């Protein structure tokens, strides 16, 4: 699996800023006054236990959820004032696959390609199927695919429009080790091309190798934010396993 280089100019990933950003669901605080600045071209791994707020953070970044308080800025522009076309620059992989069970892998991708208004949709779909090594199963119905294949297909869907910022919520769950490694290698490749990647995980067995930055969320609060060094990895590891 190797991400094809962009035919056009190098991707320009956006600069993302969160200022005192909070998200509530009635009595539950999912995100608590986050302050975060992500320069373009970062590979960020967001760590935290279950319920720490990783999913909410990624959904807010993907513009799927509106913050209750605070600001979210992309290239210094407030998120709520961004035009719908901006979403072209984002790619999101969530817990749910967003796949139609009764459609084949190819049909699923073709649908999303058309929605995105991509030129030569069929060609692009075939390209991505090849990149993700899904060609042998292109005509299989989505519901017949294994978990690993579904995940690759979901990744393919997010990659179709060559986004500048990839947001992935625990993408490695349920995947076997070799598949996980290939996915991480692929993401590293995207990062090398100049894209930003934000990836969440609750599992420290994941290779943190390609990451440039580590974040740790605890009960909706950002308790650690630093570059990916061995020392920082240790600190985070201790905090995650030891408890505050």
């Amino acid at each position, binding site marked *: 699996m190797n991400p094809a280089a962009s035919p056009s100019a190098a991707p320009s990933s956006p600069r993302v800023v969160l200022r005192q950003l909070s998200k509530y669901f009635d009595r539950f605080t999912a995100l608590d006054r986050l302050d975060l600045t992500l320069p373009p071209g970062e590979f960020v791994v967001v760590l935290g236990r279950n319920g720490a707020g990783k999913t909410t953070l990624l959904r807010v970044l993907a513009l799927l959820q509106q913050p209750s308080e605070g600001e979210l800025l992309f290239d210094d522009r407030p998120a709520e004032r961004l035009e*719908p076309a901006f979403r072209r620059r984002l790619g999101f992989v969530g817990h749910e696959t*967003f*796949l139609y069970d009764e459609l084949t892998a190819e049909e699923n991708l073709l649908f999303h390609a058309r929605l995105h208004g991509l030129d030569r949709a069929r060609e692009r779909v075939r390209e991505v199927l090849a990149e993700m090594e899904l060609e042998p199963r292109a005509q299989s119905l989505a519901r017949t695919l294994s978990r690993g294949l579904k995940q690759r297909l979901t990744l393919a869907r997010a990659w179709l429009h060559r986004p500048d910022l990839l947001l992935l919520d625990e993408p490695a769950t349920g995947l076997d080790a070799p598949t996980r490694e290939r996915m991480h290698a692929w993401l590293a490749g995207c990062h090398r091309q100049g894209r930003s990647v934000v990836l969440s995980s609750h599992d420290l067995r994941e290779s943190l190798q390609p990451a440039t930055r580590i974040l740790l969320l605890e009960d909706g609060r950002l308790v650690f934010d630093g570059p990916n060094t061995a020392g920082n990895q240790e600190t985070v590891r201790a905090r995650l396993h030891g408890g505050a």
Partner: protein
Amino acid sequence: MDTGRVALAVFRKDLVAERRTKEVFTAVLLFGFTVSVAFTFAFEPTSAEARKITGGLLWLAFLFSAVLGLNRAFARETSNQCLQGLRLIPADLGGVYLGKLASNLLFLLLAELVLLPPFGVFFDLTLWARPGWLFLILLLGTWGLAALGTMFSAVSANTRMQELMLPLLLLPLTVPVLIAAIESTVILLEGRPMSEAALWIKLLTGFDIVFTLLCWLLFDYVIQE
């Protein structure tokens, strides 16, 4: 235009899925058939009196089976959170509503057309005297049901009592459609001149246009998080 592109993509996708599974069409057809049979036990389908109520019975059968069909059609979008996935596209979501309205309308109409001959047999009706008018009434009436039905199935999908909310919302609000469609159908079946139905046809058209536009504008609010 973005909206047109999105609507067309959604429509085509629904066609592919339905051609493969035939879920919605079969559900509407079978349920409509069962309801029609039940009606023959409840009402004596003889004499001129019957003309008046069969118009009503026909549309009741359509209404009940439409509720079933709409629920089924929308279930495709809620599994795997597909509808949320649609919010990632770089376009506004009104097109999704229009696409789903078009596919729902198509499947409901097809099922209704297949349902007509057996219904005519049960109640001894001559349905095909004025097929053009019949089709027009069917189209306008079903459009009204589908316009609000597509919207409300999206609304209901967000609640705890999905299957209950759709009919609860749809039935009262489509009363104008029912009245207009039933009255026009009765006029048609009784062999009266269709000029008598002019007002009803106008009401149906007005209803369809107003609510399609309104639902198109409001759809975005329903699927936000």
